[in-house]
Protein backbone atom coordinates (compact mmCIF):
# COMPACT_ATOMS: atom_id res chain seq x y z
CA UNK A 1 0.00 0.00 0.00
CA UNK A 2 1.25 3.49 -0.72
CA UNK A 3 0.09 7.09 -0.80
CA UNK A 4 -0.57 8.91 -4.02
CA UNK A 5 -1.81 12.43 -4.66
CA UNK A 6 -4.73 12.31 -7.04
CA UNK A 7 -6.73 15.45 -7.91
CA UNK A 8 -5.00 17.31 -5.10
CA UNK A 9 -5.82 14.77 -2.38
CA UNK A 10 -3.54 12.15 -0.80
CA UNK A 11 -5.13 8.73 -1.23
CA UNK A 12 -4.18 5.18 -0.24
CA UNK A 13 -3.59 3.05 -3.31
CA UNK A 14 -2.52 -0.56 -3.93
CA UNK A 15 0.81 -1.45 -5.55
CA UNK A 16 -0.96 -1.38 -8.89
CA UNK A 17 -2.61 2.00 -8.26
CA UNK A 18 -6.14 0.87 -7.32
CA UNK A 19 -7.82 2.90 -4.55
CA UNK A 20 -7.84 1.09 -1.21
CA UNK A 21 -10.99 2.86 -0.02
CA UNK A 22 -13.75 3.33 -2.57
CA UNK A 23 -15.41 6.03 -0.43
CA UNK A 24 -12.44 8.35 -1.10
CA UNK A 25 -13.43 8.43 -4.77
CA UNK A 26 -15.05 11.35 -6.58
CA UNK A 27 -15.44 12.38 -10.21
CA UNK A 28 -12.27 14.48 -10.18
CA UNK A 29 -10.28 11.47 -8.98
CA UNK A 30 -11.84 9.41 -11.77
CA UNK A 31 -10.88 11.99 -14.38
CA UNK A 32 -7.28 12.14 -13.23
CA UNK A 33 -6.82 8.33 -13.13
CA UNK A 34 -8.46 8.13 -16.57
CA UNK A 35 -6.17 10.72 -18.08
CA UNK A 36 -3.13 8.81 -16.76
CA UNK A 37 -4.42 5.78 -18.65
CA UNK A 38 -5.21 7.94 -21.67
CA UNK A 39 -9.00 7.87 -21.56
CA UNK A 40 -11.22 10.94 -21.67
CA UNK A 41 -14.38 10.30 -19.68
CA UNK A 42 -17.81 10.84 -21.24
CA UNK A 43 -21.25 10.45 -19.57
CA UNK A 44 -21.36 6.87 -20.93
CA UNK A 45 -18.10 6.10 -19.11
CA UNK A 46 -19.66 7.38 -15.89
CA UNK A 47 -22.73 5.17 -16.37
CA UNK A 48 -20.43 2.15 -16.46
CA UNK A 49 -18.32 3.42 -13.55
CA UNK A 50 -21.39 4.01 -11.38
CA UNK A 51 -22.69 0.53 -12.21
CA UNK A 52 -19.35 -1.01 -11.17
CA UNK A 53 -19.39 0.97 -7.91
CA UNK A 54 -22.95 -0.10 -7.10
CA UNK A 55 -22.14 -3.77 -7.72
CA UNK A 56 -18.98 -3.56 -5.66
CA UNK A 57 -20.83 -1.88 -2.78
CA UNK A 58 -23.33 -4.77 -2.94
CA UNK A 59 -20.36 -7.19 -2.77
CA UNK A 60 -21.11 -8.72 -6.16
CA UNK A 61 -18.22 -10.09 -8.19
CA UNK A 62 -17.54 -8.29 -11.45
CA UNK A 63 -16.77 -9.95 -14.74
CA UNK A 64 -16.73 -8.67 -18.29
CA UNK A 65 -19.61 -11.07 -18.88
CA UNK A 66 -21.92 -9.58 -16.26
CA UNK A 67 -21.09 -5.99 -17.25
CA UNK A 68 -22.02 -7.03 -20.80
CA UNK A 69 -25.40 -8.19 -19.46
CA UNK A 70 -25.97 -5.03 -17.39
CA UNK A 71 -28.08 -3.34 -20.07
CA UNK A 72 -25.72 -0.34 -19.96
CA UNK A 73 -23.15 -1.51 -22.49
CA UNK A 74 -22.45 -4.59 -24.56
CA UNK A 75 -19.04 -6.21 -24.17
CA UNK A 76 -18.02 -4.72 -27.48
CA UNK A 77 -19.00 -1.20 -26.35
CA UNK A 78 -17.14 -1.74 -23.08
CA UNK A 79 -13.99 -2.42 -25.12
CA UNK A 80 -14.54 0.77 -27.11
CA UNK A 81 -14.90 2.82 -23.90
CA UNK A 82 -11.96 1.21 -22.08
CA UNK A 83 -9.61 -0.28 -24.68
CA UNK A 84 -6.94 -2.90 -23.85
CA UNK A 85 -8.33 -4.30 -20.64
CA UNK A 86 -11.82 -2.96 -20.07
CA UNK A 87 -12.39 -4.35 -16.59
CA UNK A 88 -8.90 -3.58 -15.28
CA UNK A 89 -9.08 0.05 -16.39
CA UNK A 90 -12.74 0.73 -15.63
CA UNK A 91 -12.27 -0.62 -12.09
CA UNK A 92 -9.21 1.50 -11.55
CA UNK A 93 -11.07 4.62 -12.69
CA UNK A 94 -14.12 3.64 -10.59
CA UNK A 95 -11.96 3.57 -7.46
CA UNK A 96 -12.74 -0.06 -6.65
CA UNK A 97 -10.36 -3.00 -6.08
CA UNK A 98 -8.90 -4.86 -9.04
CA UNK A 99 -11.42 -7.59 -9.93
CA UNK A 100 -10.23 -11.04 -8.95
CA UNK A 101 -11.88 -12.95 -11.75
CA UNK A 102 -8.55 -14.59 -12.44
CA UNK A 103 -7.95 -17.73 -10.44
Amino acid at each position, binding site marked *: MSLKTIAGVELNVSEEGYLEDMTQWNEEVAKEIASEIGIELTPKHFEVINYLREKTAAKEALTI*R*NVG*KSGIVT*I*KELYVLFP*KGPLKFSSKIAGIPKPT*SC*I
Partner: protein
Amino acid sequence: MKNLVILGAGTAGTMMANHLRPKLYSNEWNITIVDQYKTHYYQPGFLFLPFDIYSKKQVKKVGKKFIPKFVNYIQKKIEKIIPEENKVVLEDETLNYDVLIIATGSKIAPEETEGLIGPLWKKDIFDFYTYEGAVDLRNKLRNWEGGKLVVHITEMPIKCPVAPLEFSFLADTYFRKKGIRDKVDITYVTPLSGAFTKPTCTKALNYLLNEKDIKIETDFAIESVDNDQKEIVDYEGRRIPFDLLVTIPTNMGDEVIEKSGLGDDLNFIPTDHNTLQSLAHENIFVIGDATNVPASKAGSVAHFQAETLTDNILLYIDGYPLKKEFDGHANCFIETGNNKALLIDFNYKTEPVHGNFPFAKIGPLKLLKESVLNHWGKLAFRWIYWNMLLKGIAIPFVSRNMSFKGKVFDIKPEEK
Protein backbone atom coordinates in the same frame (compact mmCIF):
# COMPACT_ATOMS: atom_id res chain seq x y z
CA MET B 1 -35.86 -41.06 9.22
CA LYS B 2 -34.18 -37.98 7.89
CA ASN B 3 -32.85 -37.56 4.37
CA LEU B 4 -29.54 -36.27 3.18
CA VAL B 5 -29.42 -35.95 -0.61
CA ILE B 6 -26.26 -35.47 -2.66
CA LEU B 7 -26.65 -34.22 -6.24
CA GLY B 8 -23.81 -35.36 -8.48
CA ALA B 9 -21.59 -38.44 -8.14
CA GLY B 10 -18.40 -36.90 -9.49
CA THR B 11 -15.28 -36.34 -7.43
CA ALA B 12 -16.88 -34.12 -4.77
CA GLY B 13 -20.23 -35.93 -4.44
CA THR B 14 -18.65 -39.38 -4.25
CA MET B 15 -16.22 -38.18 -1.57
CA MET B 16 -19.07 -36.73 0.50
CA ALA B 17 -21.01 -40.01 0.37
CA ASN B 18 -17.92 -41.85 1.58
CA HIS B 19 -17.20 -39.33 4.33
CA LEU B 20 -20.73 -39.10 5.67
CA ARG B 21 -22.05 -42.66 5.58
CA PRO B 22 -19.89 -43.90 8.49
CA LYS B 23 -20.60 -40.74 10.49
CA LEU B 24 -24.41 -40.60 10.26
CA TYR B 25 -26.41 -43.29 12.11
CA SER B 26 -28.15 -45.50 9.54
CA ASN B 27 -31.26 -45.72 11.71
CA GLU B 28 -31.56 -41.89 11.67
CA TRP B 29 -30.30 -40.80 8.25
CA ASN B 30 -30.88 -42.05 4.72
CA ILE B 31 -28.21 -40.92 2.29
CA THR B 32 -29.12 -40.72 -1.40
CA ILE B 33 -26.81 -39.75 -4.24
CA VAL B 34 -28.15 -38.86 -7.69
CA ASP B 35 -26.27 -38.83 -10.98
CA GLN B 36 -27.61 -39.65 -14.41
CA TYR B 37 -24.31 -40.99 -15.78
CA LYS B 38 -22.91 -44.48 -15.19
CA THR B 39 -19.26 -43.70 -15.83
CA HIS B 40 -16.93 -41.96 -13.39
CA TYR B 41 -14.12 -40.24 -15.29
CA TYR B 42 -10.67 -39.46 -13.95
CA GLN B 43 -10.76 -35.96 -15.37
CA PRO B 44 -7.08 -35.07 -14.80
CA GLY B 45 -6.37 -37.89 -17.27
CA PHE B 46 -8.08 -35.96 -20.10
CA LEU B 47 -4.85 -33.95 -20.33
CA PHE B 48 -2.82 -37.07 -21.16
CA LEU B 49 -5.34 -38.79 -23.42
CA PRO B 50 -4.72 -36.62 -26.54
CA PHE B 51 -0.98 -37.46 -26.44
CA ASP B 52 -1.48 -41.22 -26.07
CA ILE B 53 0.13 -41.10 -22.61
CA TYR B 54 -3.01 -42.57 -21.04
CA SER B 55 -5.36 -45.00 -22.71
CA LYS B 56 -9.15 -44.65 -22.68
CA LYS B 57 -9.39 -47.44 -20.11
CA GLN B 58 -7.16 -45.62 -17.63
CA VAL B 59 -9.48 -42.67 -17.24
CA LYS B 60 -12.86 -44.28 -16.64
CA LYS B 61 -14.50 -46.71 -14.29
CA VAL B 62 -18.06 -47.63 -13.37
CA GLY B 63 -19.20 -44.98 -10.88
CA LYS B 64 -21.13 -47.42 -8.73
CA LYS B 65 -17.92 -49.05 -7.53
CA PHE B 66 -17.08 -45.94 -5.53
CA ILE B 67 -20.44 -45.40 -3.84
CA PRO B 68 -20.42 -46.93 -0.35
CA LYS B 69 -22.88 -49.57 0.86
CA PHE B 70 -26.05 -48.28 2.49
CA VAL B 71 -26.09 -45.24 0.25
CA ASN B 72 -29.03 -45.16 -2.14
CA TYR B 73 -27.62 -44.53 -5.64
CA ILE B 74 -30.14 -43.20 -8.16
CA GLN B 75 -29.18 -42.98 -11.83
CA LYS B 76 -31.67 -40.45 -13.09
CA LYS B 77 -31.67 -36.98 -14.54
CA ILE B 78 -32.20 -34.14 -12.06
CA GLU B 79 -34.93 -31.84 -13.36
CA LYS B 80 -35.21 -29.18 -10.67
CA ILE B 81 -34.40 -28.25 -7.10
CA ILE B 82 -37.23 -26.56 -5.17
CA PRO B 83 -35.49 -25.12 -2.11
CA GLU B 84 -38.67 -23.57 -0.64
CA GLU B 85 -40.21 -27.06 -0.35
CA ASN B 86 -36.95 -28.98 0.35
CA LYS B 87 -37.56 -31.10 -2.74
CA VAL B 88 -35.58 -32.36 -5.70
CA VAL B 89 -37.53 -33.33 -8.81
CA LEU B 90 -36.03 -36.19 -10.84
CA GLU B 91 -37.25 -37.43 -14.22
CA ASP B 92 -39.94 -39.64 -12.72
CA GLU B 93 -39.91 -39.17 -8.95
CA THR B 94 -39.47 -36.48 -6.30
CA LEU B 95 -37.07 -36.66 -3.36
CA ASN B 96 -37.52 -34.84 -0.06
CA TYR B 97 -34.46 -33.69 1.81
CA ASP B 98 -33.53 -32.34 5.22
CA VAL B 99 -30.00 -31.53 4.08
CA LEU B 100 -28.96 -31.10 0.45
CA ILE B 101 -25.40 -31.20 -0.89
CA ILE B 102 -25.00 -29.86 -4.42
CA ALA B 103 -22.01 -31.27 -6.27
CA THR B 104 -23.16 -30.90 -9.86
CA GLY B 105 -19.81 -29.59 -11.09
CA SER B 106 -19.06 -27.49 -14.13
CA LYS B 107 -18.92 -28.24 -17.81
CA ILE B 108 -17.98 -26.66 -21.08
CA ALA B 109 -20.45 -24.42 -22.89
CA PRO B 110 -19.00 -24.00 -26.42
CA GLU B 111 -22.34 -22.60 -27.63
CA GLU B 112 -21.54 -19.40 -25.66
CA THR B 113 -18.96 -18.34 -28.28
CA GLU B 114 -20.17 -17.40 -31.75
CA GLY B 115 -18.81 -19.64 -34.47
CA LEU B 116 -17.18 -22.17 -32.16
CA ILE B 117 -19.65 -24.91 -33.00
CA GLY B 118 -19.46 -24.32 -36.72
CA PRO B 119 -18.12 -26.14 -39.78
CA LEU B 120 -14.66 -26.55 -38.20
CA TRP B 121 -15.82 -28.01 -34.85
CA LYS B 122 -14.29 -31.48 -34.43
CA LYS B 123 -12.51 -31.01 -37.76
CA ASP B 124 -9.92 -28.37 -36.88
CA ILE B 125 -11.36 -27.15 -33.55
CA PHE B 126 -11.28 -29.38 -30.48
CA ASP B 127 -11.64 -29.31 -26.71
CA PHE B 128 -10.05 -31.73 -24.24
CA TYR B 129 -12.27 -30.96 -21.23
CA THR B 130 -14.66 -33.77 -22.12
CA TYR B 131 -13.84 -37.45 -22.59
CA GLU B 132 -15.19 -37.38 -26.15
CA GLY B 133 -13.29 -34.18 -26.93
CA ALA B 134 -10.00 -35.60 -25.64
CA VAL B 135 -10.43 -38.82 -27.66
CA ASP B 136 -11.33 -36.92 -30.84
CA LEU B 137 -8.32 -34.66 -30.37
CA ARG B 138 -6.08 -37.71 -29.86
CA ASN B 139 -7.25 -39.12 -33.19
CA LYS B 140 -6.65 -35.79 -34.88
CA LEU B 141 -3.12 -35.43 -33.45
CA ARG B 142 -2.13 -38.94 -34.48
CA ASN B 143 -2.35 -37.91 -38.13
CA TRP B 144 -1.68 -34.18 -37.95
CA GLU B 145 1.29 -33.09 -40.02
CA GLY B 146 1.86 -29.69 -38.45
CA GLY B 147 0.92 -26.06 -38.84
CA LYS B 148 -0.31 -23.37 -36.47
CA LEU B 149 -1.51 -24.88 -33.18
CA VAL B 150 -3.42 -22.38 -31.06
CA VAL B 151 -4.23 -23.32 -27.45
CA HIS B 152 -6.91 -20.97 -26.23
CA ILE B 153 -8.84 -20.08 -23.06
CA THR B 154 -12.22 -18.41 -23.63
CA GLU B 155 -12.90 -16.85 -20.22
CA MET B 156 -12.26 -17.45 -16.53
CA PRO B 157 -13.08 -19.29 -14.36
CA ILE B 158 -12.24 -22.67 -15.86
CA LYS B 159 -11.80 -26.08 -14.32
CA CYS B 160 -8.15 -26.84 -13.59
CA PRO B 161 -6.80 -23.43 -14.67
CA VAL B 162 -3.29 -24.71 -15.44
CA ALA B 163 -4.39 -27.55 -17.74
CA PRO B 164 -4.24 -25.48 -20.96
CA LEU B 165 -0.66 -24.50 -20.21
CA GLU B 166 0.25 -28.08 -19.37
CA PHE B 167 -1.35 -29.05 -22.68
CA SER B 168 0.98 -26.62 -24.49
CA PHE B 169 4.06 -28.00 -22.71
CA LEU B 170 3.08 -31.60 -23.43
CA ALA B 171 2.36 -30.69 -27.06
CA ASP B 172 5.92 -29.36 -27.37
CA THR B 173 7.34 -32.68 -26.09
CA TYR B 174 4.90 -34.72 -28.23
CA PHE B 175 5.85 -33.00 -31.50
CA ARG B 176 9.57 -33.15 -30.67
CA LYS B 177 9.35 -36.89 -30.14
CA LYS B 178 7.48 -37.23 -33.42
CA GLY B 179 10.24 -35.26 -35.12
CA ILE B 180 7.90 -32.59 -36.47
CA ARG B 181 8.38 -29.83 -33.88
CA ASP B 182 9.93 -27.60 -36.60
CA LYS B 183 6.66 -27.84 -38.54
CA VAL B 184 4.49 -26.83 -35.57
CA ASP B 185 4.01 -23.29 -34.36
CA ILE B 186 2.50 -23.21 -30.83
CA THR B 187 0.66 -20.10 -29.60
CA TYR B 188 -0.96 -19.83 -26.18
CA VAL B 189 -3.88 -17.36 -26.07
CA THR B 190 -5.31 -16.19 -22.75
CA PRO B 191 -7.81 -13.56 -21.57
CA LEU B 192 -5.50 -12.90 -18.60
CA SER B 193 -2.47 -10.61 -18.52
CA GLY B 194 0.01 -13.46 -18.05
CA ALA B 195 0.44 -17.15 -18.81
CA PHE B 196 -0.23 -18.20 -15.25
CA THR B 197 -3.27 -17.16 -13.29
CA LYS B 198 -1.17 -16.33 -10.23
CA PRO B 199 1.39 -13.51 -10.62
CA THR B 200 4.13 -15.28 -8.58
CA CYS B 201 3.90 -18.23 -10.96
CA THR B 202 4.19 -16.00 -14.01
CA LYS B 203 7.33 -14.49 -12.56
CA ALA B 204 8.93 -17.80 -11.57
CA LEU B 205 7.88 -19.80 -14.58
CA ASN B 206 7.82 -17.59 -17.66
CA TYR B 207 11.18 -19.10 -18.70
CA LEU B 208 9.32 -22.31 -19.57
CA LEU B 209 7.53 -20.65 -22.46
CA ASN B 210 10.79 -19.38 -23.97
CA GLU B 211 12.53 -22.68 -23.41
CA LYS B 212 9.80 -24.52 -25.28
CA ASP B 213 9.34 -21.86 -27.96
CA ILE B 214 5.69 -21.24 -27.16
CA LYS B 215 4.37 -17.84 -28.23
CA ILE B 216 1.93 -16.10 -25.94
CA GLU B 217 -0.95 -13.69 -26.67
CA THR B 218 -2.42 -12.11 -23.52
CA ASP B 219 -5.55 -10.02 -22.78
CA PHE B 220 -7.43 -11.73 -25.61
CA ALA B 221 -11.18 -11.82 -24.96
CA ILE B 222 -12.67 -13.83 -27.80
CA GLU B 223 -15.73 -12.52 -29.59
CA SER B 224 -16.06 -15.13 -32.34
CA VAL B 225 -14.42 -17.76 -34.48
CA ASP B 226 -14.09 -16.93 -38.17
CA ASN B 227 -14.52 -20.35 -39.78
CA ASP B 228 -13.76 -19.08 -43.31
CA GLN B 229 -10.46 -17.39 -42.49
CA LYS B 230 -9.61 -19.92 -39.72
CA GLU B 231 -9.00 -17.15 -37.20
CA ILE B 232 -10.16 -16.33 -33.68
CA VAL B 233 -11.28 -12.70 -33.29
CA ASP B 234 -11.42 -10.65 -30.09
CA TYR B 235 -13.64 -7.71 -29.12
CA GLU B 236 -11.07 -5.23 -30.38
CA GLY B 237 -10.76 -6.91 -33.75
CA ARG B 238 -7.46 -8.67 -33.00
CA ARG B 239 -7.18 -11.81 -35.14
CA ILE B 240 -5.11 -14.92 -34.50
CA PRO B 241 -4.87 -17.50 -37.30
CA PHE B 242 -4.90 -21.25 -36.62
CA ASP B 243 -4.68 -24.54 -38.43
CA LEU B 244 -5.63 -26.46 -35.31
CA LEU B 245 -7.48 -24.74 -32.46
CA VAL B 246 -7.55 -26.42 -29.06
CA THR B 247 -9.95 -24.31 -27.05
CA ILE B 248 -11.18 -24.28 -23.49
CA PRO B 249 -14.76 -23.07 -23.98
CA THR B 250 -16.64 -21.06 -21.33
CA ASN B 251 -17.15 -23.22 -18.22
CA MET B 252 -20.58 -23.15 -16.62
CA GLY B 253 -22.45 -24.86 -13.80
CA ASP B 254 -25.15 -27.40 -14.61
CA GLU B 255 -28.37 -26.17 -16.25
CA VAL B 256 -30.39 -27.59 -13.35
CA ILE B 257 -28.87 -24.79 -11.24
CA GLU B 258 -30.19 -22.22 -13.71
CA LYS B 259 -33.62 -23.89 -13.89
CA SER B 260 -33.81 -23.84 -10.10
CA GLY B 261 -32.79 -20.17 -9.88
CA LEU B 262 -29.85 -20.97 -7.62
CA GLY B 263 -26.88 -19.73 -9.64
CA ASP B 264 -25.04 -16.62 -10.82
CA ASP B 265 -24.73 -15.72 -14.50
CA LEU B 266 -22.44 -18.72 -15.08
CA ASN B 267 -24.75 -21.04 -13.08
CA PHE B 268 -22.31 -21.25 -10.17
CA ILE B 269 -23.95 -21.15 -6.74
CA PRO B 270 -23.20 -18.29 -4.34
CA THR B 271 -21.53 -20.10 -1.44
CA ASP B 272 -19.88 -19.02 1.81
CA HIS B 273 -16.12 -19.10 1.11
CA ASN B 274 -15.21 -20.64 4.46
CA THR B 275 -18.20 -22.78 5.57
CA LEU B 276 -19.43 -23.96 2.11
CA GLN B 277 -23.04 -23.33 3.09
CA SER B 278 -25.15 -21.84 0.30
CA LEU B 279 -25.76 -18.13 0.90
CA ALA B 280 -29.46 -18.42 0.08
CA HIS B 281 -30.57 -21.55 1.97
CA GLU B 282 -29.17 -22.78 5.26
CA ASN B 283 -29.85 -26.49 4.65
CA ILE B 284 -28.12 -26.45 1.24
CA PHE B 285 -24.36 -26.96 1.06
CA VAL B 286 -22.24 -26.72 -2.07
CA ILE B 287 -18.93 -28.36 -2.91
CA GLY B 288 -16.43 -28.63 -5.76
CA ASP B 289 -16.79 -26.93 -9.12
CA ALA B 290 -20.47 -26.05 -8.51
CA THR B 291 -19.63 -23.25 -6.04
CA ASN B 292 -18.75 -19.68 -6.93
CA VAL B 293 -15.93 -19.53 -4.35
CA PRO B 294 -12.75 -17.91 -5.68
CA ALA B 295 -10.65 -21.08 -5.39
CA SER B 296 -9.43 -23.20 -8.29
CA LYS B 297 -11.95 -25.62 -9.72
CA ALA B 298 -9.90 -28.76 -9.10
CA GLY B 299 -10.10 -32.17 -7.48
CA SER B 300 -7.58 -31.28 -4.80
CA VAL B 301 -9.74 -28.32 -3.78
CA ALA B 302 -12.83 -30.54 -3.61
CA HIS B 303 -10.83 -32.98 -1.47
CA PHE B 304 -9.87 -30.30 1.05
CA GLN B 305 -13.40 -28.86 0.98
CA ALA B 306 -14.87 -32.31 1.67
CA GLU B 307 -13.08 -32.55 5.00
CA THR B 308 -14.39 -29.17 6.17
CA LEU B 309 -17.86 -29.79 4.75
CA THR B 310 -18.16 -33.17 6.52
CA ASP B 311 -17.50 -31.47 9.85
CA ASN B 312 -19.90 -28.67 9.02
CA ILE B 313 -22.76 -31.01 8.04
CA LEU B 314 -22.40 -32.80 11.38
CA LEU B 315 -22.32 -29.47 13.23
CA TYR B 316 -25.35 -28.21 11.29
CA ILE B 317 -27.37 -31.36 12.03
CA ASP B 318 -26.66 -31.01 15.76
CA GLY B 319 -27.48 -27.30 15.73
CA TYR B 320 -23.97 -25.95 16.34
CA PRO B 321 -22.39 -22.98 14.54
CA LEU B 322 -20.38 -23.92 11.43
CA LYS B 323 -16.59 -23.85 11.24
CA LYS B 324 -15.29 -21.01 9.08
CA GLU B 325 -12.41 -23.18 8.09
CA PHE B 326 -11.94 -23.66 4.36
CA ASP B 327 -9.10 -21.40 3.17
CA GLY B 328 -9.16 -22.03 -0.58
CA HIS B 329 -6.31 -24.54 -0.29
CA ALA B 330 -5.25 -26.05 -3.62
CA ASN B 331 -2.37 -28.35 -4.39
CA CYS B 332 -1.63 -29.05 -8.03
CA PHE B 333 0.97 -30.80 -10.10
CA ILE B 334 1.76 -28.98 -13.34
CA GLU B 335 3.18 -31.10 -16.14
CA THR B 336 5.96 -29.25 -17.96
CA GLY B 337 6.85 -31.90 -20.55
CA ASN B 338 9.97 -34.09 -20.86
CA ASN B 339 8.77 -36.18 -17.91
CA LYS B 340 9.03 -33.29 -15.49
CA ALA B 341 6.45 -31.49 -13.42
CA LEU B 342 6.04 -28.68 -10.94
CA LEU B 343 4.06 -28.71 -7.73
CA ILE B 344 2.19 -25.67 -6.46
CA ASP B 345 0.44 -25.14 -3.13
CA PHE B 346 -1.69 -22.05 -2.46
CA ASN B 347 -4.93 -20.72 -0.98
CA TYR B 348 -7.34 -17.76 -1.26
CA LYS B 349 -4.81 -15.33 0.14
CA THR B 350 -1.36 -16.82 -0.38
CA GLU B 351 0.09 -17.23 -3.84
CA PRO B 352 2.20 -20.26 -4.76
CA VAL B 353 5.59 -20.17 -3.05
CA HIS B 354 8.94 -21.95 -3.18
CA GLY B 355 9.83 -24.57 -0.57
CA ASN B 356 9.53 -28.25 0.24
CA PHE B 357 6.41 -30.40 0.40
CA PRO B 358 4.89 -31.94 2.44
CA PHE B 359 7.75 -31.89 4.97
CA ALA B 360 9.78 -28.76 5.76
CA LYS B 361 13.46 -29.13 4.76
CA ILE B 362 12.94 -32.74 3.60
CA GLY B 363 10.34 -32.48 0.85
CA PRO B 364 10.72 -34.79 -0.98
CA LEU B 365 8.73 -32.72 -3.44
CA LYS B 366 9.95 -29.26 -4.41
CA LEU B 367 7.42 -26.47 -4.74
CA LEU B 368 7.41 -24.30 -7.86
CA LYS B 369 10.50 -26.04 -9.32
CA GLU B 370 10.59 -28.58 -12.13
CA SER B 371 11.57 -32.10 -11.19
CA VAL B 372 11.18 -35.68 -12.35
CA LEU B 373 9.90 -36.64 -8.91
CA ASN B 374 6.98 -34.22 -9.25
CA HIS B 375 6.09 -35.88 -12.57
CA TRP B 376 6.01 -39.27 -10.85
CA GLY B 377 3.86 -37.67 -8.19
CA LYS B 378 1.38 -36.58 -10.84
CA LEU B 379 1.25 -40.05 -12.39
CA ALA B 380 0.96 -41.69 -8.94
CA PHE B 381 -1.96 -39.40 -8.25
CA ARG B 382 -4.19 -41.45 -10.56
CA TRP B 383 -3.81 -44.40 -8.19
CA ILE B 384 -4.36 -42.16 -5.18
CA TYR B 385 -7.50 -40.77 -6.83
CA TRP B 386 -9.18 -44.12 -7.43
CA ASN B 387 -8.01 -45.80 -4.25
CA MET B 388 -7.91 -43.08 -1.61
CA LEU B 389 -9.33 -39.74 -2.64
CA LEU B 390 -12.78 -40.90 -3.83
CA LYS B 391 -13.13 -43.13 -0.81
CA GLY B 392 -12.60 -40.16 1.46
CA ILE B 393 -9.33 -41.47 2.88
CA ALA B 394 -7.15 -38.56 4.01
CA ILE B 395 -3.89 -38.22 2.09
CA PRO B 396 -1.12 -38.66 4.67
CA PHE B 397 0.67 -35.48 5.75
CA VAL B 398 -1.38 -33.17 3.53
CA SER B 399 -3.71 -31.05 5.62
CA ARG B 400 -6.99 -29.45 4.61
CA ASN B 401 -5.66 -25.96 5.35
CA MET B 402 -2.50 -24.67 3.71
CA SER B 403 0.57 -25.16 5.89
CA PHE B 404 3.25 -22.48 6.03
CA LYS B 405 5.99 -24.82 7.22
CA GLY B 406 8.88 -25.29 4.80
CA LYS B 407 7.74 -22.49 2.53
CA VAL B 408 9.92 -19.67 1.31
CA PHE B 409 8.31 -16.32 0.53
CA ASP B 410 10.94 -15.03 -1.87
CA ILE B 411 8.93 -13.99 -4.93
CA LYS B 412 7.10 -10.73 -5.13
CA PRO B 413 4.31 -10.50 -7.67
CA GLU B 414 5.21 -8.51 -10.75
CA GLU B 415 4.30 -4.85 -10.34
CA LYS B 416 2.41 -3.11 -13.10
